[in-house]
């Protein structure tokens, strides 16, 4: 538990109502107002939906009736002010755009967006102004694609998306980034008969929004994308479209450590045991020129490096022969165990788990189809295990080289106000419940310990071998960050499993 003095300020970029029906809002000048917020909540949702925020301001700080505002942009600043008063006795107030303590190269700006709704509420106890809005994703979600022509895909996808965003004035300033340094594919190359006139362009639907188009392009590239923010070198916060994969490729030392009993409250963890446990993925694309349906089955045809990293058993017997190619390799399909009437597994039968099938248009390249399938597999796998927790701490620490509880204070300090989507976390439980059994380093000693406490031998052996073997790594799916003048900082995070087989448990 640490003492923090969280504060939130809101920069309102207001286009005032001029009470003229025919005036052009573009010609109106924008006014910037900075107000201290009573309550700020930033909800960072999953990557396909817009992030939202709500701001509550004292009417005396912002005495504006909703009828006076035509449009309003918002930048939210959150910072741990460390102390309440300055040395001269004045109040230590948050300064929008000021450097943060933990990382002076970034400012305290955490979110950028637009107000959807403003309301004022007067009652006997308080007079408040409420703003509710969404981040810049809303611009892309609300804006229908009106260029009315197919989108050329003959450039790397990041360039194609940037060109698409540039075609609409309001989205032209959105940055496109590739934080993992992935190779950005050129989608036109995968079209049947690439290079022919009119090939390599993406049609758009009559009601498709920019966001739907971008999501579709990313899915064909085997990527996911989400809207985030990025601080430029001058610390200006700009919207940033992140192109990435569901799988986190970061080192475990960058995980932020959360420990129930130390800096976590209200931990919930659940597993959907029956639903997605065993499945295969199949991605299909019809090639009308070849009259052929190209199929990629995952994990069977997954890239060798991907499959091995995922934990599938590589089958070297299939690396040679007419069906093997240098870029693909074969793994066994995921199977469902067949049970005998007595409940034991019938090893003589193999029942292949169902294939969840997706149709993707205009992909005539098998390797690309495999990459798409791998991304889909990663997305589905993550849904197996999920949970949520709350924390009231404003700073955390990354893990150092290990994952033990003693390493909690040795990692790099991390400002939780700047936590990001897809952030990997290391979530441990420090209740003392496992303290006794953790003392024993070998499964044999642990089994003996359990037997002494009344478990039968078989059960003791089973638990001794698997206890603690689960990975403590998770990935943030969404989170809600609140700064309240009365109750302080709160981070409520939803997480799901991260694909990681490096955990060795207690052994």
């Amino acid at each position, binding site marked *: 538990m640490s003492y923090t003095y969280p504060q939130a300020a809101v920069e309102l970029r207001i286009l005032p109502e001029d009470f003229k029906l025919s005036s052009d809002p573009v010609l109106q000048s924008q006014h910037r107002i900075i107000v201290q917020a009573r309550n700020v909540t930033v909800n960072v949702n999953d990557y396909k939906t817009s992030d939202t925020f709500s701001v509550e301001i004292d009417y005396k700080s912002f005495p504006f009736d909703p009828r006076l505002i035509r449009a309003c942009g918002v930048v939210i600043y959150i910072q741990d002010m460390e102390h309440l008063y300055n040395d001269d006795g004045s109040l230590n107030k948050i300064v929008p755009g000021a450097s943060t303590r933990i990382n002076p190269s970034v400012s305290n700006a955490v979110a950028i967006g637009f107000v959807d709704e403003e309301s004022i509420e007067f009652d006997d106890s308080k007079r408040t102004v409420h703003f509710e809005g969404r981040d810049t994703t809303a611009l892309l979600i609300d804006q229908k694609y009106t260029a009315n022509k*197919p989108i050329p895909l003959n450039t790397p996808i990041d360039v194609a998306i940037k060109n698409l965003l540039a075609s609409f004035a309001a989205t032209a300033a959105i940055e496109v980034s590739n934080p993992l340094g992935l190779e950005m594919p050129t989608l036109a190359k995968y079209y049947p008969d690439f290079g022919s*006139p*009119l090939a390599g362009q993406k049609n*758009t*639907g*009559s009601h498709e929004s920019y966001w739907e188009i971008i999501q579709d392009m990313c899915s064909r590239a085997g990527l996911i994308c989400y809207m985030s923010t990025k601080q430029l070198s001058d610390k200006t916060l700009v919207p940033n479209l992140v192109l990435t994969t569901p799988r986190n490729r970061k080192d475990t030392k960058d995980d932020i450590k959360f420990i129930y009993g130390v800096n976590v409250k209200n931990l919930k963890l659940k597993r959907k045991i029956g639903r997605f446990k065993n499945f295969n993925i199949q991605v299909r694309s019809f090639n009308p*020129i070849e009259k052929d349906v190209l199929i990629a089955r995952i994990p069977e045809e997954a890239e060798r490096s991907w499959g091995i990293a995922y934990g599938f058993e590589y089958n070297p017997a299939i690396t040679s022969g007419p069906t093997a190619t240098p870029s693909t390799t074969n793994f066994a399909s995921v199977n469902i165990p067949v049970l005998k009437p007595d409940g034991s597994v019938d090893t003589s039968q193999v029942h292949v788990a169902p294939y969840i099938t997706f149709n993707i248009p205009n992909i005539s390249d098998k390797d690309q189809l495999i990459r798409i399938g791998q991304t889909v597999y990663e997305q589905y796998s993550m849904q197996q295990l999920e949970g949520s927790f709350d924390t009231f701490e404003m700073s955390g620490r990354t893990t150092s080289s290990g994952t033990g509880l003693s390493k909690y204070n040795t990692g790099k300090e991390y400002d939780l106000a700047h936590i990001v989507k897809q952030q990997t976390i290391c979530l441990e439980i420090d209740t003392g419940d496992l303290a006794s059994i953790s003392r024993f380093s070998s499964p044999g000693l642990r089994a003996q310990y359990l037997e002494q406490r009344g478990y039968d031998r078989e059960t003791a052996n089973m638990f001794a071998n698997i206890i603690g073997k689960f990975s403590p790594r998770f990935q943030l799916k969404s989170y809600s960050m609140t700064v309240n003048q009365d109750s302080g900082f709160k981070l409520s995070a939803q997480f799901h499993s991260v694909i990681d087989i490096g955990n060795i448990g207690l052994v």
Partner: protein
Amino acid sequence: MNELELLREIFKSTDLHIGVGTITQLGISQSKAVLRVMVNLLPENRQVVAQMTFADVYSVTFPEINDLAIVLFSDGHPDNAWVVKVCNSKEEPIPLFATTGNTMISPRLGKLVGVGRATVTPTEPFVLGNVLLSGLTNLIARLDATLSRLQSGVICWGSLGDLSYPHPLFISDISAIQEDLADMKEQYIDTASTNILSQIAFTERGA
């Protein structure tokens, strides 16, 4: 908006399965396997790239710019677009012969009709029946006139030793027939606009 209306709005399908528009661009693939066309869907003025389909794989007529086309989107996906038909309009009225229920194959203005194998450019013009009939009739008439002249009139006259000379009347009659034949050759063989060959329908001998 009540909840039912809200749900109806959420689940409302915006997929377009069939659209109509004008063709604005044509592009044949490098493999010559498909013709792609750009169609400007109406009334929304949205352009899509679609694959052209024809009456049959070997019964093919390319559309022209500004043709009115029916576009089908399989699965309602905008990228699975197929032009399944082009439609008549005021610019391309229904061929006159077809208006009485007849079957008509009309090439586009300035284009030809070919009948033959898909790998061959047909160069053999079809023969025009009526013109051929007229030519043969004229030819037979001239042949008949020649034979009648041989049977009926004086052919030679005078004698100078073993030599005799064609009669001037016979020479005159034969020369007239000869001139007719020359005219017929010009009409039925040499002149493209009057000869027995079609200028728009071609075939090939075949194997």
